[in-house]
């Protein structure tokens, strides 16, 4: 999908700034959300149920960590793009 640029570089700067802010805010929120993942099998499951639950928790932990990592990249890229657009004026 291609959207015609409106308002030139000022509009682009504003959009990139908004993108950076949302990504940055999301990064911190998702990072904090990882605290909601149970850290142990406090539910008292035993045997295969316990192992399955621990594996599922570990997969979830890694998915959230991966999302945090990619959000960091997105935040950095947004920041670099913003700097470049501002530098160009």
């Amino acid at each position, binding site marked *: 999908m291609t959207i*015609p640029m409106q308002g030139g570089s000022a509009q682009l700067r504003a959009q990139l700034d908004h993108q950076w802010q949302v990504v940055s805010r999301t990064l911190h929120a*998702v990072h904090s959300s990882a605290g909601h993942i149970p850290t142990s099998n*406090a539910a008292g499951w035993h045997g295969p149920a316990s192992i399955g639950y621990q594996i599922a928790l570990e997969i979830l932990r890694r998915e959230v960590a*991966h999302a945090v990592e990619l*959000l960091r990249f997105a935040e950095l890229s947004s920041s670099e793009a913003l700097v470049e657009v501002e530098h160009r004026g």
Partner: protein
Amino acid sequence: MGSHSHTGVALDSLIDQSSSLGVLATELRLRAGELLGVLAASPAAALGAPASAVEAHRRLEDAVNAVLRAASAAGSLHDAVHASVARYERAEQLARDAAAKVAHEFDQGLMWLLGVDVRLFGLPLLVGVGGTVLLSKWLTGNSAADELRDFFRTHGRILTNRTTVAIIREAANDLPDFAAGLLGVPPEFVMSANDAGLTTPRTDAGAIETVGSAFGLFRETGVSVKKTSVFEFGKPAASLVDRAQSFLSPDSDPNGEQIRIDRYSVPGQADRFDVFIAGTQDFSPVSGSEPFDLTGDIAGIAQNSPASYRAVIEAMHQAGVTSTSPVVLNGHSQGGLIAVMVAASGQFDVKGVLTFGAPATSIPVPQHVPVLALRNSEDLVPALGGYDTNTHAVIVERPVFDHQPIPTEWAVPAHRLEYYEQTARWADTATDPRVANIRDILDGFGADANHVESTLWVATRT
């Protein structure tokens, strides 16, 4: 048996974890939605955008996909845990219903078989225990009772064991069949005994009481109560742990008081009373001066009128409790049995009953009286009452020795109040609405009091 609420703390923890996962899934979905909004208006897709903006757009797409994947994983796990909670409760109910049906249809045969099982597998154990006790007695010259007690202390896993508890519950529920199987009596002879109605803990205990009395055992007596102390300070119990810590210790107190009654003065309202009843103090089958003894346990389960029950009623009357005074009854062990009996008597305006390890499962309590029963899974004492008959009782059960060693100082450590304090601490933080509902009633019972008077009472057989 029925549809009473049976809530394990483990199940409660499962509900907590399900809730946390739900919060996480919602948070991630909301954030993914916000990012998608930004992505739709991304400058990278605009004509003439620099390469860095295109790269930022690509990175944003990757991040959105990752957040969506994490949201999906959290959502799936939340759904799975949530479904497990529902299944656990449903399965528990189904198991209970099935057990009731099976017990109804094949009662005698099953219990006979169970007795045979115990005879086949339990007798070698008993022989082993007996042999060890006798050998030890021969070696040391100590009494058999001391040796038996010591044996169970040092072999704690025999008594402190959930299988033992289950067997005892079955046996307590259907003692004649169980005993007949144990003794090798053919099942057809047992059928007629069951036709006579000898199938409940109540009738079994009554039979024990009757037979025992012929040999001078389990003889009930009169009882007197005496107020020994008055304390005009202190705070009302504000948690389940507070209540667990409010019981007296008759064995370590020179007066040996078993009953504590806290009177709460609330401005503009009738005085309220919190009654704390201690457990069995004397395990001898021969009645002495202590009413909180084995005779009291047997008579209580038989739903007769043990001296300890009459003593508590008398102490309550002397303390000023009337039929309209709001009352909460708390009991540990036999104290819990007595608390439930007092509630069942209908003599008082009981606002709640809290028991710790009480063999009170077969005593029917009116539906309008909230009952919270704390049980340690390895505690065999509650199992002596058989299966639960109160459909509205909320039962919190928790294994205490899964993550800590079984102490060897006591024969049945899981029954000790200190381990029930641990369970009370768990229950104080449990978020299950059924537990929270009764806890709110109990915690708020003395909340408005501006004056607390505690009286201590000692009961003696006469």
